């Protein structure tokens, strides 16, 4: 009990941020037309690629002789980059089609 309470108390600001973000996420997309469901999903997909920052932090903190962390970190950077870059490029390609074209 004690440890759970202290866990809560130490992270209260994060918990606050999480709750606000949840409502923000719901609010932000609640009026999306069905037309944009696919691009929106794809765009959101690219945004969660922010997990790449975690893999960069691993690499920065790993000591240069910790090969396990370096190899896994490198793998994570590649995977994260795929998510970010691929996600944004695919979304952009989809949205290019909605662009008004000059006749």
């Amino acid at each position, binding site marked *: 009990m004690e440890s759970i309470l202290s866990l809560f108390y130490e992270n209260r600001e*994060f918990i606050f941020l999480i709750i606000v973000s949840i409502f923000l996420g719901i609010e932000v997309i609640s009026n999306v037309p069905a037309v944009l469901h696919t691009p*929106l999903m794809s765009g959101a997909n690219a945004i969660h*690629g922010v997990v790449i920052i*975690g893999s960069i932090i691993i690499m*920065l903190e790993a000591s*240069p002789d910790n090969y396990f962390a*370096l190899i896994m970190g490198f793998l994570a950077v590649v995977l994260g980059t795929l998510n970010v*870059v691929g996600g944004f490029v695919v979304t952009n390609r989809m949205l290019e089609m909605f*662009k008004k074209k000059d006749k």
Partner: protein
Amino acid sequence: MSTLLGLSILELCYIAASITFIVGLKMLSSPDKARKGNLMAAYGMGIAIIATILFKEELSADKWLNYSLILAGLVVGTIIGTRMALKVKMTAMPQMVSFFNGMGGACAAVISLVEFDHLLHSGEVEMGMLIVIILGLIIGSVSFSGSIIAYGKLEGKIGDKALPAGQIINIILLVVMLALGVFIAIADTQQALYIYVLLGVSLLYGILFVMPIGGADMPVVISLLNSFTGMAAAFGGFLYGNQAMLTGGILVGSAGTILTVLMCTAMNRSLTNVIIGSFGGGGTTEEGREGLQGSIKEITATDAAILLAYAKKVSVVPGYGLAVAQAQHTVHNLEKLLDDKGVELNYAIHPVAGRMPGHMNVLLAEADVPYPKLQEMEDANDDMSSTDVVLVIGANDVVNPAAENDPSSPIYGMPIINVLDAKNVIVMKRSMGKGYAGIENELFFHDKNRMLFGDAKDSLEKLISEVKNL
């Protein structure tokens, strides 16, 4: 540079990135601003990545290997990611999204593995950290293996397979996975083995979770896995006390969940029903189907062209068949031709036409079809009784009346486009094959309906030349 200055710049960059994520996501929900929104979020992401590399730790020469590996990883990922994203066909977009989503999940899982290893060696095992690592690992790996299965299914590489007693096995696996997670969180001594067993169970669960779900429901699953990866990213943010990861991840987690619910609503089904229902197994086709043996009436391209050219109002219901045949440009040509003849033509878009909500709109927009011509299902249904001809191109389940009048049908309850309210229906179809849900369609046997068999693109081209000849 003083560390305090560097760290402040870093935090400012994270705030900026979080703002671009929120505003970008907001802009993505309006057609005019969507593209800018996507670019904005991409810039924000770039800033966050660069700032992390430059300011998170003081640059030191000892870590040259670390920095070169980071750069190499970024370069490799960028090259592969860009190539894949640019090469993929518009029809294959959904599985591409699923694939990239899986990569994000894998990234989160790998982070958890490394951090667990880190905890093992540092000796200080803190329960809070441990819980976050375990949750990140479970959600990340389920999202990874599930997304890859979804990718394989949409690519047609993996069929719908259901294990006998699959639901029970899944529930047992889920319980084992959670119990193992709790065990690791409270265990007094830690071993690397524990976390790898958990990894294995989670990966297996992801596979078995998606495996029995039918292809027609895959968009919902991808959207759900998308929000899973968002949550996994958020746990990573918790782990590192990193606000950009936290807000980005949670934002996608909650927005993704709502999007999943919206998609389910569009199909008039509950999420539980999608996950447990094992849609599209085709097991219900045998019972009570005798009534469907009516006669099918074919129509020639010439007759169809006459019907279209002398109609006042025509409605096109596009489906996956149109996408596969790459016929979006051809249908647009037919639309322009009919427009010159004074025929009013609209597109009736079912929310789940194609393989993903909005997929049809993307394809038609690619062919320059003006945005106002795309009608959402409700509006299209309101107009249906004043429509002379409905041209169903490669769509099946979304116009199947069984959804309204056959309670034993697996798609019962899904809203459909009521094409039978119109005066005539022409269904363009490759063959009498079943739709993606694997069920018969009584529409094909209806009096008002005529079939025009053949590849969507070929048939449309024939229609165009016939209309020109009139």
